[in-house]
């Protein structure tokens, strides 16, 4: 995001958001220290866990403030609000999906561990949800403008994943692994197709090229057993 593209009201709001996040972090640190002193035991297992938490807290407060003051996306970016919301939601859900195994160790012996960093996934999801809520009307008109090829691509990708699941049901020991292998290239390819060509020409074609190569390889791997040691 280019700062020069924000208008003057947005720049004021963004500065206020940074200040607010700073004060929240200071108050948060004070509260955590006070709670620790009363308990006679630190709230966080290490300084690193505390740092992760404070950075996440600050970034979340700042982003939330920016979104609700319409200062998160630059002037030109607000046209593509649908894409940005989708991007944050999908990335957040992907991260949630991949980090759920770590969240079990969040609290150990009454102390918060470094696993708190996994909450970064929640940050991405909540940013996507906030963007959707704040820009619901704009989003509805943006969805109506999404080209048909986007829906066709999602449909084809979904069909390939379902067929792969069917073909590998007995062979593949871990279905989560199969879904994860498809997820990232699918996101890359879909993002490439969905990106508006005018503003992101180079990124669009890099995403399409890498996404189609990667998705193609994974499809061959699961559909015909290309390089797949389980297919013998």
């Amino acid at each position, binding site marked *: 995001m280019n700062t020069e593209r924000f208008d003057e009201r947005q720049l004021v709001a963004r500065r206020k958001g940074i200040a607010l996040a700073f004060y929240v972090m200071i108050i948060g640190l004070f509260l955590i220290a006070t709670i620790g002193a009363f308990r006679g035991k630190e709230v966080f297992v290490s300084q690193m866990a505390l740092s992760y938490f404070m950075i996440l807290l600050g970034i979340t407060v700042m982003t939330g403030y920016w979104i609700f003051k*319409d200062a998160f996306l630059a002037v030109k970016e607000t046209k593509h609000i649908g894409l940005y919301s989708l991007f944050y939601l999908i990335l957040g859900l992907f991260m949630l999906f991949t980090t759920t195994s770590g969240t079990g160790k969040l609290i150990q012996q009454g102390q918060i561990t470094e696993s708190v960093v996994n909450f970064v996934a929640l940050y991405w999801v909540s940013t996507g949800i906030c963007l959707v809520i704040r820009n619901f009307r704009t989003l509805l008109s943006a969805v109506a403008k999404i080209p048909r090829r986007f829906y066709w691509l999602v449909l084809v990708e979904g069909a390939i994943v379902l067929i792969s699941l069917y073909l590998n049901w007995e062979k593949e020991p871990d279905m989560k692994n199969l879904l994860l292998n498809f997820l990232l290239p699918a996101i890359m390819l879909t993002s490439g197709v969905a990106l508006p060509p005018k503003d992101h020409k180079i990124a669009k074609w890099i995403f399409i090229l890498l996404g189609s190569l990667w998705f193609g390889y994974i499809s061959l791997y699961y559909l015909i057993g290309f390089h797949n040691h389980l297919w013998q």
Partner: protein
Amino acid sequence: MKKNLKLKAARVERDLTQVELAERIGVTRQTIGAIEKGDYNPTINLCLKICKVLGKTLDELFWED
């Protein structure tokens, strides 16, 4: 701050929506909305840009009676 009804009237007179005015000036629609509602006090630079697009003077749009 008071609502800026003069700005809204001048915009409607020119048959422009908030989105169209915002695009011509290079700001977000929300910024135009905030100025009209009196939630945001624009800088002189932004006032001048608005005046030029709407063909009005600073007095006509931003002078409070």
